[in-house]
């Protein structure tokens, strides 16, 4: 096994995208922003990803829809130009900019040709720093958000995810979402003044990470970022510790609960089973739990797919993973969909596989094969500029140095069966897991 990993590393080390990645990346504070630039061999293409702490958790006790509404207002004009003038400039050169609001972060993504990077950075800076936040546009954004939330009310996936997260994350935890109905009410009550206040309070460079990857010239990128973001201030830190969940020895409030959400006219049931963990992705035992979980539920050869789908034909898709653990302790869950008539059998099979995995642990053979697969897919994922940029941002958000980009395969290779099985037993307990079913039950 060791020999294989070495040969794989040699194979990839011959190529620039993966060779000593940390050395190829340049990371420096620029205009108060944590800027990472990474030059690859792709011609003309530049990918930009960035994140700042301005997600839903920052609504605190205020209006829960305001962070999302603020994000939705960013591409609706700036103090200098209306949204259509900006859109025309981008579309004229085939450039793309988008924003998304998550539990903790506002994320910005962009793709453009190398020659258009100054234009794209100028627009992003203007949209982040000085969005118009006009009342008329706010009304349209609010109407769109209300529509999207109403549509989600009938989504089995959205309803099950909301119920699960609310069951396992306590009040005050940044991962605990509002209910869809609470958000609907909040969206209807939100005002443009609240959006303006939120923007003023939370948007700024202080904890903003920006990654530029692709055909970027390091000598040009930093001065450009410095220029367009010059004089910008503000920004607040991520809420890392707030409402952190307890270790598994003290069960979450809803431990062992079964939540059923009836929805009419649904032909497929969304199913979730899991619990909060006390682990962040960068915690020492987290990688062991991730790899052990991959053996249970990542891919067709995982235990869940090979039995519940392949052998028993009970589902189209089932998997297990760790979620929302980038910035704070997250959750572990199995997700699947079942036809209503196969739901009881599907749940029984899933619980059986979970119990066997939890009690018996993983085997040496499983771990050897999984290590090889995880390392291989890691490098395949880095073969596109987008994949590379996303990995760099995730690495920083998880609190690692960029050295982790090179260290990850070695860390996976160093894992042992006892370490993985200990992590499974220490951080999970099937008896305390929450089960959610949403659909026509």
């Amino acid at each position, binding site marked *: 096994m060791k020999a294989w990993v070495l040969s794989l590393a040699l*194979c*990839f080390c011959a190529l620039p995208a993966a060779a000593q990645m940390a050395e190829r990346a340049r990371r420096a504070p620029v205009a108060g922003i944590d800027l990472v630039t990474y030059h690859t061999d792709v011609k003309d293409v530049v990918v930009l990803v960035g994140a700042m702490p301005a997600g839903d958790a920052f609504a605190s006790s205020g209006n829960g829809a305001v962070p999302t509404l603020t994000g939705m207002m960013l591409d609706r004009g700036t103090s200098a130009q209306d949204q*259509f003038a900006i859109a025309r400039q981008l*579309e004229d050169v085939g450039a793309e900019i988008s924003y998304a609001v998550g539990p903790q972060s506002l994320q910005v993504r962009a793709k453009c040709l190398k020659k258009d990077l100054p234009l794209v950075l100028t627009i992003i800076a203007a949209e982040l720093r000085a969005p118009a936040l006009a009342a008329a546009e706010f009304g349209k954004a609010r109407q769109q958000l209300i529509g999207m939330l109403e549509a989600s009310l009938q989504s089995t996936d959205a309803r099950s995810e909301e119920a699960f997260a609310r069951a396992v994350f306590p009040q005050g935890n940044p991962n605990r979402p509002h209910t869809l109905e609470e958000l609907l009410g909040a969206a209807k009550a939100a005002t443009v003044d609240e959006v303006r206040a939120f923007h003023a309070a939370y948007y700024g460079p202080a904890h903003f990470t920006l990654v530029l990857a692709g055909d970027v010239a390091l000598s040009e990128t930093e001065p450009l970022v410095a220029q367009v973001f010059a004089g910008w201030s503000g920004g607040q830190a991520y809420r890392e510790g707030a409402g952190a969940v307890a270790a598994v020895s003290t069960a979450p409030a809803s431990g062992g609960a079964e939540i059923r959400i009836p929805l009419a006219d*649904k032909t497929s049931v969304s199913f979730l089973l899991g619990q909060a963990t006390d682990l962040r992705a960068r915690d020492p035992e987290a990688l062991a739990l991730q790899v052990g979980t991959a053996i249970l539920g990542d891919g067709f050869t995982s235990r869940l797919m090979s039995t519940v789908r392949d052998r028993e034909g009970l589902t*189209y898709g089932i998997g297990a993973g760790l979620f929302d653990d980038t910035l704070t302790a997250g959750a572990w869950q199995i997700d699947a969909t079942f036809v209503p008539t196969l739901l009881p059998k599907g749940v029984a099979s899933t619980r059986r596989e979970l119990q066997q995995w939890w009690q018996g642990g993983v085997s040496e053979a499983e771990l050897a094969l999984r290590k090889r697969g995880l390392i291989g*897919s890691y490098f395949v994922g880095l073969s596109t500029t987008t994949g590379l940029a996303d990995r760099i941002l995730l690495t920083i958000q998880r609190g690692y140095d960029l050295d982790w980009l090179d260290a990850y395969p070695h860390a996976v290779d160093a894992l042992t069966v006892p370490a993985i099985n200990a992590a499974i037993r220490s951080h999970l307990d099937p008896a305390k897991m929450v089960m959610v079913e949403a659909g026509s039950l």
Partner: protein
Amino acid sequence: MSRCSLSLGLLSFACAALATGAAQTDPVQTGAVPMRVPDGFAFVQSLGGIDEYRLTSNGLEILLVPDRSAPVVTFQVTYRVGSRNEVTGTTGATHILEHMMFKGSEGYDDARGNGVKQYLEHVGGEYNANTSVDRTTYFATVGAKDLEGYVAIEADRMRRLLLRESDRQAEMTVVRNEYERGQNDPDNVLIEDVTAAAYVALPYHHPVIGWLSDIEHVPIEKLRAFYDTFYWPDNATVTVVGDFDTATILQWLKKYYGVYPRSPAPIPDVYTEEPAQIGERRVTVQRSGELGSVVIAHKVPNGRDADQPALDVLDAILSSGKSARLYRALVDSGLALSASAGTDLHRDISLHTLYAQLAEGATQAQVEKALSAEITKIQAQGVTAAEVERVKQQYVAADAYRRDGTAGAAAEINEWIAVGDWTLYVRFPQLVAAVSPADVQRVTRKYFAPDKATIGWFVAEPPTEHRP
């Protein structure tokens, strides 16, 4: 929404130099390095960085796209068989067969520990398969050193699939689960119903996944017959994109695929033709939901037709970005949450759709009227030169984007293979570059007559069950 991946992908097509070549013998120029064509292969042409070969013993088509910017390779096999080749009683058979292709072949089987899923997951490959109306495709992106192992497995299952009844039984319920997941989404049901109404004779009438009763009852013998009819080298195209050596990959293809003969019988084609539509058609989906939606569909020519570039420019003008006409007329005005236009390109007659999801307070009639009004406006007044130029510039950028990674390029080539001419992967952007505003107006007038429309409404009924 059944948004065609091809019509989305078209935005990333290159404006590479056209270099059509007749079949030629050695030496040939592959990428930058001249080489002799190995024995057993015919060099067909090189176009836009893609080298086309034919395995002479059995007619296997091969497209090689060298790209050494990363140490990975995407290997893809496209079989020219899709739901268009199905008839009553076997709808969905193509797709079930796609699933069965992962159940083991004579040389590679999970029970022996060397199945395709096991191999690809053990080497960290990204892989999948999918089925459309016109083709079935298997593909994986792997490290360059792991390519030969995948080629061997992929070739083995071309003609040596086990197709066990016990596997069919388990997989039938898997596919049934997949079917029901699709039925969960009212818009998915709506587009299926609109498609079924738009096509009367062509087999595009039925959904790719098939009708539920056929999924549940199709016998293994019919799947076997389907496999033995269509899974032959002369009905397939191998596409390889990424870090490989041409001589080596050709050697592997000969070694693993050269063992098969051509199909013993001609691959059957579809001879059915769609009769002309003689009046507007309407369908309604009524079920629980919060928001309604509207689809307006028109039949347009096959994907190879000379009018498709102008139709593609029309779609971008209607729905690409915030400058697009549908965004301004429907979304910015508050009538819709989203609006789009696109064409599902087919080997035979294709389907163009306008789609909008209603905003709160809007009615289907209002949204339908607004969608139609944008078409009418273009029919009467045309589009501007600036709008057409904007779309062309987007193609230029997309050309660079599609060179970033191997899987995306392979997927786009795959869709052009499906419609019957892979060279459109290279030529389509050039054809778009020649489109004029007058062309856009002409095709809008030609294909979007109201009496040729098939209109679908999803009418959301108040949920009968709600929060516990």
